[in-house]
């Protein structure tokens, strides 16, 4: 028996080793530009989702017409992310699909994170190695410009520069399409990047109403949360669930305008001073009143412990001082245009009387390591129960100024999408917090009790070029490559047209800040070849592309 165990262990070990060896390794580091020499194979990496696999299947034949071969590898999202953002070891092309977190609605997010040279370091999202002092200048100027009109001007200039330099292509922005039971809930609220069912900007769970006797709502979702501690939430999805309890000061409305939420109002005093006034009569879920001292405490706490998930707060907020019964004054380190949506929109209040004690617990490396098993918030929902990998339940807080219409929310963790669809059809769930494919929607629409809610998104399906690797160091090549993408065909084939086409500025045309005069790059392979030819590229007898001599 001993032998059998050992053999099995060895087999398992062998399988693992093979699996790790088969993970993407790129030759591109050795690829060189030889004048007149052939443009070698182009390597690409993308997540292993069906949509991404199909995307490359459609893209590659058109690029082949330029005389270049693109070889795509697919891996789990985490592996792709580790190689690109983590290691900054991206191949020629990296395709990604982003989620519609609320802070990404402000143009600052994608512009800064993807293209500012400050994000070139490991861990940053500028893994395509775009490094333009001119862009940095414009980008830094727009994020510090507190006058919205002037800011939009600067954003338009930055967009123009991205089109000229073309560090990547934002191909399309896929709509979020969520099915729900029409016989169980009414009044779902579509929000950009959120569909009608996600928890990012969850107006559905605040405003929709139950139909019938059962006044709760059951939502199916694919992934569980990791923590109940609001200081520890690295993942955007996890954080959005905690915001049901730890409500942000400001929330974007269904029309995306920042609206008062835990704050009653805010006033911009000057470019680095903002006064925020809390609502009257707010109460923590344990009955204690919410005081402006708690708000100040939370920001001091974040500054003191430097929680990784709140790096943005520490980058911009210098101090929070109490200036009235319910009013706190935020002093910024420098003007920050997205302050209201991206800082007040994420800022929450931690009860001082609880976290003060947590801080004293020396067995914890950081208060972020405290499990917070019974979270005490103050927002529209209270903590109910969390059965890991099974479901979590939040109950309506009747004391909130706008109490939810549902008595409880159950978020069921159902990893298999077909099971989620089956549960919705069987009436075991009421709404799906997962975006469906066109064929799944067709299947569901046969059921008269099922409705479909959708909203466009601001989060792109995009491909970033690695500008450090030839031939992508050449802007002509980058542009020719971009117009060899048939965006309309892709969107029609992949998502049945349910998407916004992208114009390669990485800002969706759905965003009010995006330059309305921009057009979608026209698909034109002949033009692409002409551009390459003009730049000196040649083709050999086999039709392979060669660098200019």
């Amino acid at each position, binding site marked *: *028996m001993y032998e059998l165990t050992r053999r099995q262990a060895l087999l398992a070990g062998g399988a693992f080793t093979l699996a790790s060896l088969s993970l993407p390794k790129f030759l591109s580091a050795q690829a060189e530009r030889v004048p007149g020499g052939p443009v070698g194979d182009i390597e690409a990496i993308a997540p292993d989702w069906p949509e991404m696999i199909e995307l490359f299947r459609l893209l590659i034949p058109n690029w082949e017409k330029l005389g270049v071969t693109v070889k795509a590898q697919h891996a789990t999202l985490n592996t792709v992310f580790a190689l690109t953002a983590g290691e900054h070891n991206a191949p020629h092309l990296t395709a990604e699909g982003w989620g519609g977190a609320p802070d990404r609605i402000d143009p600052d997010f994608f512009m800064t994170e993807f293209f500012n040279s400050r994000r070139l370091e490991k*861990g940053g999202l500028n893994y395509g190695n775009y490094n333009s002092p001119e862009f940095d200048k414009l980008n830094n100027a727009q994020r510090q410009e507190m006058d919205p009109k002037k800011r939009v001007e600067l954003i338009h200039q930055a967009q123009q520069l991205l089109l000229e330099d073309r560090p990547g292509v934002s191909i399309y922005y896929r709509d979020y399409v969520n099915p729900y039971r029409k016989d169980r809930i009414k009044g779902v609220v579509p929000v950009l990047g959120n569909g009608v069912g996600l928890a990012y900007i969850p107006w559905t769970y605040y405003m929709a109403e139950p139909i019938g006797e*059962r006044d*709760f709502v059951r939502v199916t979702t694919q992934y569980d949360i990791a923590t109940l501690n609001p200081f520890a939430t690295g993942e955007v999805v996890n954080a959005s669930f905690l915001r049901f309890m730890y409500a942000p000061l400001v929330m974007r409305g269904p029309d995306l305008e920042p609206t008062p939420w835990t704050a009653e109002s805010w006033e911009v005093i000057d470019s680095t001073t903002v006064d925020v006034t809390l609502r009257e009569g707010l109460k923590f879920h344990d009955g204690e009143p919410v005081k402006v001292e708690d708000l100040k405490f939370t920001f001091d706490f974040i500054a003191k412990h430097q929680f990784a998930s709140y790096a943005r707060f520490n980058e911009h907020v210098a101090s929070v001082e109490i200036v009235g019964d319910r009013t706190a004054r935020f002093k910024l380190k420098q003007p920050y245009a997205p302050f209201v949506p991206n800082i007040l929109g994420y800022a929450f209040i931690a009860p001082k009387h609880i976290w003060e004690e947590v801080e004293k617990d020396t067995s914890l490396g950081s208060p972020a390591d405290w499990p917070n098993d019974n979270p005490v918030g103050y927002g529209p929902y209270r903590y109910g129960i969390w059965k*890991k990998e099974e*479901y979590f339940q939040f109950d309506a807080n009747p004391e909130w100024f706008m109490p939810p219409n549902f008595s409880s929310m159950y978020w*069921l963790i159902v990893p*298999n999408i077909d099971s989620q669809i089956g549960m919705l059809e069987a009436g075991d769930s009421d709404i799906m917090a997962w975006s469906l494919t066109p064929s799944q929607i067709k299947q569901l629409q046969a059921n008269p009790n099922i409705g479909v809610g959708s909203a466009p998104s601001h989060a792109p399906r995009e491909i970033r070029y690695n500008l450090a690797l030839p031939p992508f160091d050449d802007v002509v090549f980058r542009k020719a490559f971009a117009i060899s993408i048939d965006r309309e065909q892709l969107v029609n084939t992949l998502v049945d047209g349910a998407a916004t086409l992208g114009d390669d500025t990485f800002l969706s045309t759905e965003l009010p800040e995006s330059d309305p005069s921009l057009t979608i790059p026209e698909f034109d392979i002949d033009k692409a070849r002409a551009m390459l030819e003009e730049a000196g590229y040649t083709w050999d007898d086999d039709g392979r592309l060669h660098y200019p001599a």
Partner: protein
Amino acid sequence: MSTRGFVIRRFFHTVVTMFLVLSMMWALFRLVPGDPLVIFLGQGELAPAELERIRAAWGLDQPAWMQYLQYIYNFMTGDLGQSFYFRRPVSEVLWEPLLNTLILMLPAVTIAIGLGVFLGSRLGWRRGSRLESISNLAILVPRALPVFWLAIIMLVLFSYELGWFPIGGMETIAFIPQTWWERLPGFDLLYHLALPLLVAVLVFLSDPLLIMRTSMIEVAQDDFVTYARARGLHEKTVRRIAQRNAMMPVITYSAIMVGFAFGGQVLLEVVFSWPGMGRLMVNSVHHRDYPVAQAAFFLMAGVVIVLNFIVDILYLYLDPRVSYE
């Protein structure tokens, strides 16, 4: 070598095996590319100084050999460490999914082994009969089918089409019993358990059954069986005697089956939304949550190794012919 000597030697082997498994796991998880920190923090702005602080808190700033020694030391002192992803002690993370997995897997394995021995001995005894050839085929079908496919087909048939069973999970949300049997304690759990249990039994059944059958065929040709027949014993009694002797390989195999049961069945768990160990293990590898992944895999391997050790010793009592003298 004396029996006592054997047990001691065998115990030593067990410890060495465990140590090897522990080391191999450590190395393998570190071969997987991806900085756990970057994956944990996800997409967004990162402060380099804070990254370094967490890296140090997680011990990832140490040289690899130090990390390894620390890991071995912690394991030996029973400290499974802190989960990177859940930010709580690994033992806390493990026990809930482990319990859920055992609720599903222990009955499945027990039924599969019991049924396997029962059917296998009868099939082996009737070797060459029409019944045997049909049954052999019937048993091989669920074994040959991919687990997730079988599970989905059962789900479509029994849950979607017939509506007899729930689609997944371990309990009905906001369950209000309507009838007296629904009020029985544990009803809701059993109701959710039934279908995944059925699929698990179908998947597990073939191995013990086929091992039992083969073993039975071998034993049937032994002299003591012929002797039993010659004594004029009833055929049923003869089979029972043969069966007891044929069970040894199944017992050995059971030790492995039970061990792997601790690891759950990730495909079943995904299809039936069962919150067990399989999903935890896959997720922890995805998240590069080394401490959880190591502990979970080690638990599985450890149970296999320990049960093997126990079975080896049990042999002395189960089969008096075995002697380590």
